[in-house]
């Protein structure tokens, strides 16, 4: 790979762009799929739309194949910067891509029409296209190391999300969409302003560039903090962390369930990734002392606000929305430690969180299919009628709480371990508070996670009109989500072995 810092000629830049293309195949495959699906949707009759999902599934599987090729080459130590340092292809980003692909595939499987249910047949083509677009956006965001690229990727995610959340076409959906756009636009504006300040400070947009970091060293801490906070607010919006969580409950309630499951996972993890890249670039300036405190406060407040709000919810999707805000806080804990162990714990948590959260949304979808309602009170007594679904629900909920024997416990265990280890070596009191609040929140969360199994088993069924529709695909999918959740408790090293081989590349090493 040619060294850009020495050769600035246009031909060299072009040469690098052409060279980068070969490392950009998964993204290209997604982009081409979007075009093909779009054209197919335009020229075919509405009845054939279910093939759209099949197309998208194939596209994601193909992308998965291309991504695994990247993983293999990265395992041989070939981490690289693409397109004139716009993107970085390290093992961490490839891992994240796998997570997003799994989330995308699960979303498609969850939206798969089931024969007995007519309205599902009319899945709009736009939904499929936008979903693939959303996956592309998360792919780009987790690799971005240039502020402009960050902005583009973030907006790609946002624009796809805004439209997706109004897909139901009903009033709550429109309301949610409007709220989403307004909050999103404001936080984007914040972020863009912050980015322009950074450009003013350093004359560079590459956060991994030594000149960027060097430029920051000369800046007074106050403007630096303000600019940093502005930029981070855009990321926190995607993570749905406090104080940018306000949109989440309405959007989750108003959007189609499979899409919500994707929202709650992929953009959140992509947002965390860019936050990791940004703050770790920052920590070179040795300003991490108070960034740690600020982010720890965000984590504590996200956990606490999310959990306390979730307790009062009656609507299952709203409850899961607040629960995902709280999980965002737990994920942030791994970042706040600013240690390798913390990042490993975060990646483990993220991977398990995908499984747990999709399982939870799938359960809500299955229960909704039985009672045609999302109010949790209508779920009464269903566990006794459908014992297998009931037991799977218990496993999913105790995993979300973080109790053994589920991988949810291992994930929380690693996060708490990383906080304690960081505290033991640095003795910063904020880490101790973080730990205490994290533990305290685990107890709080039990109160609402237990509510669904409680209603399923302890209450007599109040509603007699229960649809007895069998949805084999979703039931099987649920079983396949629950098995790894249990298996990865007993053999967590299988996943952690992969995660331990992952490195984040924060700084370009000049040859």
């Amino acid at each position: 790979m040619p060294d850009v810092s020495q050769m600035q000629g246009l031909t060299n830049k072009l040469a690098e762009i052409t060279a980068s293309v070969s490392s950009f195949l998964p993204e290209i495959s997604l982009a081409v799929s979007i075009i093909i699906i779009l054209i197919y949707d335009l020229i075919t009759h509405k009845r054939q739309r279910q093939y759209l999902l099949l197309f998208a599934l194939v596209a994601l599987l193909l992308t998965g194949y291309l991504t695994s090729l990247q993983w293999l080459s990265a395992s041989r130590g070939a981490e690289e910067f693409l397109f004139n340092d716009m993107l970085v292809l390290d093992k961490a980003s490839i891992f994240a891509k796998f997570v997003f692909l799994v989330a995308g595939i699960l979303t498609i499987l969850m939206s798969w029409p089931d024969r007995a249910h007519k309205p599902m047949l009319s899945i709009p083509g736009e939904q499929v296209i936008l979903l693939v677009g959303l996956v592309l956006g998360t792919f780009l965001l987790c690799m971005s190391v240039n502020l402009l690229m960050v902005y583009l990727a973030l907006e790609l995610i946002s624009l796809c999300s805004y439209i997706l959340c109004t897909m139901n076409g009903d009033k709550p959906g429109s309301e949610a969409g409007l709220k989403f756009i307004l909050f999103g636009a404001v936080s984007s504006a914040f972020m863009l302003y912050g980015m322009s300040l950074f450009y003013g400070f350093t004359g560079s947009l590459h956060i991994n560039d030594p000149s960027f970091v060097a430029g920051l060293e000369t800046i007074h801490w106050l403007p630096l903090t303000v600019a940093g906070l502005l930029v981070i607010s855009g990321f926190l919006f995607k993570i749905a962390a406090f104080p940018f969580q306000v949109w989440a409950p309405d959007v989750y309630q108003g959007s189609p369930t499979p899409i919500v499951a994707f929202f709650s996972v992929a953009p959140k993890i992509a947002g965390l990734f860019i936050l990791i890249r940004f703050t770790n670039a920052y920590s070179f300036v040795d300003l991490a002392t108070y960034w740690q405190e600020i982010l720890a406060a965000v984590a504590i407040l996200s956990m606490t606000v999310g959990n306390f709000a979730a307790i009062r919810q009656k609507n299952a999707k709203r409850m899961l929305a607040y629960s995902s805000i709280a999980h965002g806080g737990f994920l942030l804990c791994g970042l706040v430690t600013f240690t390798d162990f913390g990042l490993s714990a975060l990646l483990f948590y993220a991977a398990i969180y995908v499984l747990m959260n999709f399982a939870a949304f799938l359960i809500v979808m299955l229960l909704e299919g039985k009672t045609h309602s999302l109010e949790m009170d209508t779920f009464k007594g269903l566990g006794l009628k459908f014992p297998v679904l009931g037991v799977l629900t218990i496993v999913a909920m105790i995993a979300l709480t973080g109790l053994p024997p589920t991988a949810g416990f291992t994930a929380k265990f690693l996060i708490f371990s990383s906080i304690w280890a960081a505290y033991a070596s640095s003795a910063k009191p904020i880490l101790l508070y973080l730990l205490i609040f994290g533990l305290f929140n685990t107890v709080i969360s039990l109160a609402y996670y237990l509510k669904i199994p409680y209603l399923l088993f302890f209450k007599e069924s109040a509603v007699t009109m229960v649809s007895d529709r069998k949805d084999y695909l979703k039931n099987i999918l649920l079983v396949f989500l629950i098995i790894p959740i249990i298996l990865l408790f007993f053999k967590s090293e299988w996943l952690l072995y992969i995660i331990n081989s992952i490195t984040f590349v924060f700084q370009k090493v000049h040859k």
Partner: protein
Amino acid sequence: MTAYLLSLIIFVPLFGALIILAIPSAAIRSIKYLAIAITFLQIILAGFIYSVYEKGPDAPAGVHIEAAYQLQEKAPWINLDLGSLGTLSIEYFVAVDGISITMVLLAAIVMFIGAISSLQIQVKVKGYFFLYLLLSGTVMGCFLALDFFLFYLFFEFMLLPMYFLIGLWGGPRREYASIKFFLYTLAGSIFILIAMISLYISVIDPAATAVQAGLIDHVQEATSENIIQLQQMMRENKIDAGNMVHTFNMVSMADSANFIPGSLLDVLNQKLIFGNAARLWVFLALFIGFAIKLPAVPLHTWLPDAHVEAPTPVSVVLAGILLKIGAYGIIRTAFSIFPEGAVHYSWLIGFLGILSIIYGGFNALAMRDLKKLIAYSSVAHMGFVLLGLASGTAEGISGAIYQMFSHGIIASMLFLIAGVLYERTHNRMIEDYSGLATKMPYFTIVVVIAFFASLGLPGFSGFIAEFLIFLGAFNAANVNQLLPRWMAIVATLGLILGAAYYLWTLQRMFFGKYFGKDAAWDTLLRDLRPIEYVMFLPLIILTLFLGLFPQFFLDLVNQSVGQLVTLINQTGKENLELILRHISL
């Protein structure tokens, strides 16, 4: 055969639970008999463990010496690479010593009696016995696990079957009671979790680390010289952090030489957290976590609700075994790993003990519901356990373990008694009955025996237990100054209270002229049925046997208790001196 004895006693019930899942739910009788057969098999296994366990003055006695544990089974389970922190090794490690073997015997007996009592369960039988066997296996696992992670797994997993057993088969307010039980115990286990995390980050497995550091080739080769050499090297910072093997082994944790120098829980560590040493904080975390389970006043409020709402067999298991896990946890983790905490906080532990004794006693006196009365008497009796432990003397700690066993037997009887009445009339109010002795003479004899055993009449196991505890608590002022003498004196008030509420209840419910609130009870209140004799007789024989031949039990625990007492009074005091040098409290 003996090689896998401990695994068998844990996994046979779990396997049985799976078999029950495969039986069609209509086959109620076969489910019930299978559950009883499996719990009986557990008794046989426990008896077998008892017979192969080496007893006597020279027998290896465990506590803080790994080689002195008997029937050890050890296998690697999870090995995680923590990067710069080294590696983390979680093992499947089970073994018995004099303390845990008593609890295993108790658990096997109570689980069997509980299974017989569960024959009365009529609804959702399959689910009930599935959960019951699950509980039975995890309880055994809790008493046998010596790897903290494994212990924690069993400890937490126990909550789920218990939650559903109370919540699905309980009384009118079962939902409230089961959630309260779950939340309280989870809050407790969060304290234990934080202690566990802080411990494994600070503690290494010397043998495995020696392999990593290249001293030896294989863990099995490690001799005590190797280990001392490695601990010495670690003190001198000659071991690279990346080579350290962090362990959950509770026995390794009990040796302060295995703590990484400079780590927060190192004895020589001078950093304070909120003005107190980290080791003392973690001791408190463990103590509070288990005190909720015990339960000690003021953390006891879940207990009366859970007991009152739980069905009879679940109450029996809860009082007979689950409370003991709290006390066992304190001995196995808090006292053995942080003996200095046992010294430093002996006053607090003793005070909570007498608080539980007095508060539990007065509450029991005021209760109108027989089951609530028994629940509060449990609180008082577990207070005696705390008092005995706090004394740090051989008599006191033996007494505490004796009390754990004895209360397990007696509380089971008491809850069965409440169950006998409730099954007949669905009413447990003391004031609604009178003169039951004339209607149910044999039942009254059983009640008198159980009540007298519980209030500590000589000849019953409760007497020996409380006698030893008082001996220890009074002696502590002379021997090791861990408890002031007034605590023992105040605790004697508990004996008087116990006599008062039991005798008063006897007088109100059983003596005098027959009266039942409802005329229909005349026919309902029949004397004991054969199946009820089957439950009561073994328990009566046991409490009498242990009351008359305490040597039989004490021989089993003496060695281990002796080691624990030395640990507390020597290592504990030395450690405390090191720690307190830096603290001006």
